[in-house]
């Protein structure tokens, strides 16, 4: 036994170290993905017998207006959330100086990302309050009528996204600030001698060097947009009349809420969301694979 270990330990050791991690990950992440796919083929209230219904959950989805509303909102989230990247870059450029106390400024600007989305949601519901919210005080001061952002079907999703952009911009800012630290000063000086400045310098000299930061900012922003749940749950609970739902929220609502426990139907929504996310995950893995081979 002992000699077997001695002889083969380089072959066995990695599996020994991997075993607990793989076991936990398989039980709580990998297997549940397949279980959800299977549940999506059943009608199930979570307690009683499961009834096999084939693809009928998916067929029902095709005709479900709430599903399309959620899907549409997911697209809006994805597109608008991307604004966090240029916004973060802008703030990072503004703060990338060496004046006194700048480090404290940088940390304070990062603040919104550190606090919970529950707090962000509460803060913004308040900011939007039609009676005393700061937004409406400001609107009235410049002569507009107050808007009840979170009670208005046309505004609500944008209002929540704006709240989400606050921490997300802070996140992108910190990624760019670290990236800017690594920008090669000699290239900048050389470009300055060639009379490059302002936007041209940013576009042709600085941004190419910030590619790794931009890549990570894109990854975390896409994931953040597709995971949006907390803010919607806190700020509107999907309302008014379901107009601010996204797939993640609609799934939760279907699977366990007062409207009944439709686990199968919820799982079908989750599978759709998973497939959308899979596009990004695959792209990310392909890039990682290339980088690995490139090493």
């Amino acid at each position, binding site marked *: 036994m002992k000699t077997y270990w001695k002889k083969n330990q380089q072959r066995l050791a990695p599996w020994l170290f*991997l075993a607990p991690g793989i076991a936990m990950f398989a039980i709580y992440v990998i297997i549940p993905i397949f279980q959800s796919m299977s549940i999506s083929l059943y009608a199930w209230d979570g307690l009683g017998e499961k009834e096999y219904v084939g693809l009928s959950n998916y067929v029902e989805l095709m005709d479900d207006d709430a599903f399309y509303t959620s899907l549409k909102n997911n697209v809006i989230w994805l597109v608008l959330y991307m604004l966090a990247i240029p916004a973060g870059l802008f703030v990072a450029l503004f703060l990338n100086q060496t004046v006194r106390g700048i480090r404290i400024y940088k940390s304070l600007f990062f603040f919104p990302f*550190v606090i919970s989305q529950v707090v962000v949601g509460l803060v913004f519901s308040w900011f939007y309050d039609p009676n005393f919210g700061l937004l409406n005080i400001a609107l009235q001061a410049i002569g507009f009528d107050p808007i009840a952002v979170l009670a208005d079907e046309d505004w609500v999703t944008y209002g929540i996204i704006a709240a989400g952009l606050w921490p997300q911009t802070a996140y992108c800012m910190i990624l760019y600030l670290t990236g800017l630290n690594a920008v090669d000063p000699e290239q900048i000086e050389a470009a300055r001698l060639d009379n490059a400045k302002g936007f041209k310098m940013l576009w042709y000299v600085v941004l190419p060097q910030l590619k790794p930061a931009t890549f990570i900012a894109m990854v975390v922003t896409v994931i953040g947009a597709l995971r949006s749940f907390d803010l919607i749950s806190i700020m509107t609970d999907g309302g008014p009349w379901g107009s601010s739902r996204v797939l993640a929220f609609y799934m939760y609502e279907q699977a366990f809420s007062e409207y009944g426990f439709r*686990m199968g139907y919820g799982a079908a929504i989750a599978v759709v969301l998973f497939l959308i996310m899979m596009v990004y995950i695959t792209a990310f893995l392909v890039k990682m694979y290339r980088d690995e081979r490139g090493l």
Partner: protein
Amino acid sequence: MFPTPIEKTSTASQTFYKIALPIALIVWLLPLLAVALTSIRSAGDITAGNYWGWPTSFNLLENYTAIFENTPIGKYILNSFKVTIPTVIGAVALSCMTGFALGVYRFKSNLPVFFMFVAGNFVPFQILMVPVRDLSLNLGIYNTTMGLALFHIAFQTGFCTLFMRNFIKAMPYALIEAARVEGVSEIKIFWYVVMPLMKPAIAALSVLIFTFIWNDYFWATVLTQGADTQPITAGLYSLNGQWVAAWHLVSAGSIVAAMPPVLMFFLMQKHFIAGLTLGAVK
């Protein structure tokens, strides 16, 4: 350095920058400042609609003791710690091992196993929700802080493995080779050679995971209910429902909930940022 260092520009733009900086900060944090200010107002101010004027009285102590005395917020905070601390320890411990295995050894399924962790870390929570809740119910750990922590440990292992593996991969391999030549066993190499070098990565991951888990709301609502098990994020949501229009209390509760991760961030800033950039932007 880009943009042009401010000290090399005209005096006018230097002054402008020095004025713009604090103003920008105040605007950026305005929502938060409003909450902080409201959390020390009296109930009278709130009913009178005095949200933005000077407070008629400063009720710092009253409001903060009120939320601890009249609500289970203390319990919620304790639950948050009971979920967060085991998660940090568990996920970091598991990923030290997986990261070591994937970063040091060459074997056929190395990349596939690594990619499994990375891909799993990105999946939407909703696809796990129903089976994980079911599993917790069957194991009898539904509605316990341990049940919630176990799920978090498993899920965070994905991200932590990505981070640890990249960190270990960047370490000098010659060190391990040398130990092997000396006849040191693989387990001792892990413990005595690699682990001491992983301290910065462990610190970075710990602060990051602490913040992530402290701020988790989704899984808290899926796997726990009631003040005996719910962490502060879910607790704050239900308190918000009870405190209709008691904005000074909601604000004080929000500040209390935000405190631990904020303190963590300020104390361990360097590590925190190293963790956020996934080690990719150095």
